[in-house]
C-alpha cells in the first residue's frame, strides 16, 4: 500500500542532558599545557599538579551543579566569586540535567570506546577500574612495555596526579605509522569526544522515553575525525550512538565551530517539521584540546586549574508532544555572509531581527542564553566576562530601539541575562547549557519564551575572516498553554 505523506509538524525540544568527566590528569594533554610543558618541563608540571582539583571539589563547584541541573543559574548571582571558594556541601554528582563522572570511570569508558584495539592499560591500573571494564576485552602491559610504546609514538594518559605519585594509567597507540590524522594524541582527543558524547546520550536515552526509538543523531562537536584522505570528514554521531548502545538511528555531523549545536538544532527541528524523522538527538562530545587552555591565568591568580572537565551533551528534538517548548523555526536565524561581524551586528542579526519578524521586542523574551562561559575561567586569562559583555550588548540594542533607557541597561541585563556557568569546551558554552533550565521554566515555570544565541569563530581555520552565529527561539507549547488556561 502506498504510504500517505507525513504531516508537517511543530518540533519541540523535549530534554537536554550534560555530562562532565572530571579528568585532572588529562589537563597535561590539553593543547596549551602540552606545548608549554614541552618548553618548560618538570618545574611547570609540578606547578600544574599542585593546582589540580579533586573529584569532590569538581562536584561541589557551583557552576557544575548548575550545569547538571541541581541548582538554577541565578543562584550564582548570590555567590561571591571566585566560585571555587564557595563549594556546595553534600553536592551530588548526579542531577536532573546530567552527571559528573570521575577519571577512573572515564578511562574505563575510553577502553570501552576503543573499537580499533589501540588502548593499552597498565597491568597494575586495570584492576582498579575492573568494574567498568566488564565485558570489554582490554590489552594490558607492564610499565616498561608502556614506556616502550610511548617512545614509539603512543600517547600516555595518567592517574593519581592530584593526590599521589603520578603514573601512566594507559596509552593510546598510533592508528597508522605515517598518518598525521591518526596520530595517537589525535585519537585520544577523538575518543574523549566519543565517550563524553555517548555518556550524555545514554543519560538522555535512559531517562527520557527509553522505549521510543531515536531516528537520527546529529553530531555537532568540534573534533576532526578522519584519516589522511579526509581529515575531519568523519561521522562521530554514529560512533557516539554505537557506544551509547542505541541501535535505531542513523547519523551525520554538522560543523560550525562553537555555533555547531545551534545550527544542528535548527536542522533537527527542520527534519522533524518536514516529517523526515520523528526523533532526532543532537549530540556533542568534549574537547580534550581545550583542557587547561587558560591555565596561565589561573596560576597567576592562584586558582585551581578550572578547565579540568570534558563536557558532553545530548538534546532531544521530537514532534509536538503537547507539552515541551516549541522550537519556532520561523524565528530560527543564521548569520549570513553579508552580515557584519561586530558584536552589535551579530546580535542585531541573530537576536533582534528574528524577533522583529514575529512582531516581538527584545524585552518580550524572558531570558536570552548567549555564550555562557564561566567568567572565573575567562577573566584571569584576560578574556573578560563573556556573557556579561554580550548581555550588555543586547541591553544596548534594547536601549537604542527605545525599549528601555540607558539607565535601565543593568536592570535589563539582570532580568533577561544569566551568569556564565559553562566550562570553556568550545561548542558547549554556546547557549545550550541553559536548555534544561529553559525547558523547566517553559513548562513548570512561568516563562513564555527564551532565545538561544550562539557565535562561532570561523576565522580560526584560516579559510575565512568571518565569524558565524545562529539563534533559535523556544516558546511555551501552545497546546500546553491552552491546557493551563482551561484546567
Amino acid at each position: 500500500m502506498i504510504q500517505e505523506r507525513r504531516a508537517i509538524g511543530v518540533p519541540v525540544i523535549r530534554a537536554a542532558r550534560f555530562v562532565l568527566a572530571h579528568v585532572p590528569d588529562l589537563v597535561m594533554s590539553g593543547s596549551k599545557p602540552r606545548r608549554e610543558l614541552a618548553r618548560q618541563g618538570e618545574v611547570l608540571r609540578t606547578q600544574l599538579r599542585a593546582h589540580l582539583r579533586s573529584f569532590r571539589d569538581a562536584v561541589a563547584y557551583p557552576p557544575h551543579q548548575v550545569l547538571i541541573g541541581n541548582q538554577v543559574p541565578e543562584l550564582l548571582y548570590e555567590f561571591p566569586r571566585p566560585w571555587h571558594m564557595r563549594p556546595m556541601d553534600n553536592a551530588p554528582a548526579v542531577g536532573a540535567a546530567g552527571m559528573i563522572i570521575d577519571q577512573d570511570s572515564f578511562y574505563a569508558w575510553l577502553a570501552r570506546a576503543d573499537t580499533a584495539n589501540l588502548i593499552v592499560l597498565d597491568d597494575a591500573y586495570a584492576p582498579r577500574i575492573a568494574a567498568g571494564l566488564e565485558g570489554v576485552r582490554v590489552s594490558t602491559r607492564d610499565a616498561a612495555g608502556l614506556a616502550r610504546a610511548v617512545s614509539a609514538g603512543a600517547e600516555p594518559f595518567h592517574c593519581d596526579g592530584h593526590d599521589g605519585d603520578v603514573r601512566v594509567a594507559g596509552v593510546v597507540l598510533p592508528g597508522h605509522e605515517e598518518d598525521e590524522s591518526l596520530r595517537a594524541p589525535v585519537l585520544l582527543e577523538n575518543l574523549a569526544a566519543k565517550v563524553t558524547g555517548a555518556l550524555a546520550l545514554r543519560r538522555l536515552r535512559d531517562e527520557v522515553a527509553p522505549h521510543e526509538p531515536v531516528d537520527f543523531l546529529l553530531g555537532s562537536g568540534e573534533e576532526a575525525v578522519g584519516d589522511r584522505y579526509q581529515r575531519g570528514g568523519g561521522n562521530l554521531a554514529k560512533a557516539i550512538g554505537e557506544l551509547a548502545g542505541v541501535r535505531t538511528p542513523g547519523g551525520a555531523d554538522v560543523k560550525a565551530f562553537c555555533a555547531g549545536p545551534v545550527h544542528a538544532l535548527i536542522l533537527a527541528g527542520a527534519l522533524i517539521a518536514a516529517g523526515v524523522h520523528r526523533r532526532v538527538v543532537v549530540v556533542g562530545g568534549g574537547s580534550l584540546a581545550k583542557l587547561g587552555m587558560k591555565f596561565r591565568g589561573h596560576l597567576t591568580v592562584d586558582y585551581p586549574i578550572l578547565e579540568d572537565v570534558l563536557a558532553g551533551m545530548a538534546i532531544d528534538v521530537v514532534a509536538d508532544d503537547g507539552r515541551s517548548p516549541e522550537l519556532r523555526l520561523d524565528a530560527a536565524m543564521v548569520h549570513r555572509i553579508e552580515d557584519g561581524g561586530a558584536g552589535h551586528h551579530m546580535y542585531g542579526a541573530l537576536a533582534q531581527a528574528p524577533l522583529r519578524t514575529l512582531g516581538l521586542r527584545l524585552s518580550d523574551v524572558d531570558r536570552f542564553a548567549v555564550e555562557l562561559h564561566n567568567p572565573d575561567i575567562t577573566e584571569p586569562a584576560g578574556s573578560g566576562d563573556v556573557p556579561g559583555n554580550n548581555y550588555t550588548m543586547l541591553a544596548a540594542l534594547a536601549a537604542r530601539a527605545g525599549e528601555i533607557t540607558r539607565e535601565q541597561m543593568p536592570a535589563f541585563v539582570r532580568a533577561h541575562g544569566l551568569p556564565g556557568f559553562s566550562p570553556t569546551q568550545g561548542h558547549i558554552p554556546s547557549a545550550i547549557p541553559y536548555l534544561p533550565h529553559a525547558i523547566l521554566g517553559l513548562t513548570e515555570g512561568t516563562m513564555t519564551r527564551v532565545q538561544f544565541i550562539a557565535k562561532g569563530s570561523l576565522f580560526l581555520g584560516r579559510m575565512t575572516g568571518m565569524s558565524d552565529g545562529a539563534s533559535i527561539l523556544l516558546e511555551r507549547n501552545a497546546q500546553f498553554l491552552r491546557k493551563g488556561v482551561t484546567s
Partner: protein
Amino acid sequence: MDLEEQGTIKRVVEGSERSRMVVLLGTPNKGSTTMIALTLTQGDPSYAGPLAGVPLGLPIHHILEPEVREAIPADVYAREIGPLEFVLDATGISAALKDVRAR
C-alpha cells in the same frame, strides 16, 4: 598593541606622507585608549616595541568623540557604531584622549 602591530604601523607611517595621516581609535576603555594613544603619539611607553622612543606625533581621535561622529554621515554611524555608544565609556575615553593630547 603587540610588537608586530607596532612594527607594521611604523613601516606604514615611515613609508607614506605623514601629513595626510590621522589615527582613529576604536579602543574599548580608558586604559587601552591612553596606552595606544601614547604609543602612537609619543612612542611606546613600555619601551618594548619598535615604536619605543619614536614619537610619531600623529593627530589622534576616537570613533566615539563628538567631532568624529559629526564628520560621518548619520546613517553610516548608526549602522557601524550604533549601540556601542551605550556600551563603551565614551566620556572616560574622551577624557583619556584629552589627557594624552595635553602631555
